[in-house]
């Protein structure tokens, strides 16, 4: 992934840009801006750039050397600087997934002061909670964290052996659920259940991915919603589900799943992996420095990727909610072009 694909050599633009978050949006923006000639510093809480592409998406989907080559090209050829293991946040900290490596904390306001522009591309690094009894028991591990820990272990970034289990229940119907179920299967689980509250036709991951996993040996159970985690001595022993039926379409246009009373059943498991979606993780808990968040925690931007703060732009999943590598990349590129326009206009008007 050659983020600096737009130039042979750096251009002559002048200015300093800080990018917070080294995922696809941040790296694509870094490549664009460095090609223009700006001095670009990229901050990330993880020990290596790449974000989800490096630490969550399984390597059989994205080969890691593809990211490493692109990052090294940014560093060596385009003089982009990476400030890693550093969490940028304004106000009281919030624990997100992937925070384990943080060694330094920098307030966002400090970057806003020091740089000409700050671009926020911090993505969605929090698993949505299910809001059911027993959710905090041992043996309940959100999909993001589950996949991420396996990757850290296999990349030898930690000696801590990840969660190993014989019977794994994955809850959800998106790509994170698919990847978690596949990781479980490949790492020696005997039985893997993938449970979704609607049917295969509504599952965001799509029929193809689900059928592929069924062929690999995953048990697909549809029209079931978790009611509580069965816990013994604070350890998860299984999940109680209730059967669902499809009702009238909801706000998303998909049929709303409705519980069928008295249809409860339990699947025994020693590991429960909720994968019911990720939430935006902006570097603040609520409105700060003029940067506004919407009801779902996403940073509010205008069509030029500007936040309410003149010097702060935002792009990628932290603006759109969970999407895909390509969507985040496109968003980062467009934001970078907007930043370039902003800085050039400011230079002209002095």
């Amino acid at each position: 992934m050659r983020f600096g694909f737009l130039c042979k050599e750096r251009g002559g633009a002048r200015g300093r840009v800080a990018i917070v978050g080294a995922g696809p949006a941040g790296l694509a923006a870094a490549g664009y801006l460095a090609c223009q000639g700006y001095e670009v510093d990229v901050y990330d809480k993880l020990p290596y750039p790449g974000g989800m592409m490096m630490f969550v998406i399984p390597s059989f989907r994205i080969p890691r050397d593809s990211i490493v080559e692109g990052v090294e090209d940014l560093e060596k050829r385009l003089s982009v600087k990476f400030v890693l293991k550093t969490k940028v946040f304004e106000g009281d900290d919030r624990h997100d997934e992937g925070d384990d490596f943080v060694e330094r904390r920098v307030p966002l306001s400090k970057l806003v002061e020091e740089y000409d522009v700050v671009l926020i591309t911090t993505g969605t690094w929090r698993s949505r909670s299910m809001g059911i009894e027993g959710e905090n028991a041992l043996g309940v591990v959100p999909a993001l964290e589950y996949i991420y820990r396996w990757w850290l272990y296999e990349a030898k970034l930690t000696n801590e052996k990840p969660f190993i289990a014989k019977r794994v229940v994955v809850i959800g119907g998106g790509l994170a659920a698919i990847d978690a179920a596949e990781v479980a299967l490949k790492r020696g689980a005997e039985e893997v259940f993938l449970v979704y509250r609607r049917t295969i036709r509504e599952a965001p991951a799509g029929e193809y991915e689900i059928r592929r996993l069924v062929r690999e040996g995953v048990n697909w159970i549809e029209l079931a919603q978790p009611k509580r985690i069965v816990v013994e001595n604070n350890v998860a022993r299984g999940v109680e589900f209730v059967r669902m039926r499809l009702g009238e379409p909801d706000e998303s246009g998909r049929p709303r799943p409705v519980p069928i009373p008295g249809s409860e059943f339990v699947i025994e498991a020693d590991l429960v992996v909720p994968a019911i979606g990720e939430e935006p993780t902006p570097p603040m808990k609520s409105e700060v420095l003029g940067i506004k968040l919407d009801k779902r925690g996403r940073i509010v931007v205008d069509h030029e990727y500007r936040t309410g703060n003149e010097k702060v732009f935002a792009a990628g999943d932290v603006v759109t909610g969970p999407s895909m590598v390509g969507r985040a990349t496109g968003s980062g590129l467009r934001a970078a072009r907007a930043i370039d326009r902003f800085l050039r206009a400011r230079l002209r008007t002095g």
Partner: protein
Amino acid sequence: MRTLRVINYDACIGCYTCEEVCRFLHEDRAYIKLYDVYGGLRKPISCFHCYTAPCVYACPTGAMHKDRDGATVVDPRRCIGCTCCIAACPFGIPELTPLGYVTKCDLCSDLRKQGLDPGCVAMCPAKAISWGSMEKVVESIRKRFLAKIMAPTIESVRETG
């Protein structure tokens, strides 16, 4: 130099990076696009830049032509929007713009002029799109195939090592 672009559909993860980069480079119009083939299985399609390109033969004004790298490109000044090329193309690639001329993938002419790779090739996270001289591209496909059939053998050596 005659060049080839080949998409490895097994490696492609359907992430939209090629489409988004292309759209970014071409005034909001993507010349490589993903389509859902079956239940969320998405793959990109773009011009194959045929050696004997039916669109070039069909074009009555010479607007559709081959450039030095073998890319099939349109000269919008000569295009009359007759859509012959659209009828001739077996893959549904050329498109008529609202302004009345045809556009299609030009393998990023502007980037190639600077000695750079087309955007989709450079940015694919899965390294699924290769582009270059015929020799280079076929060699990479052959090596990929060999790595695939030898994988179990290599794996068994690694396990003992």
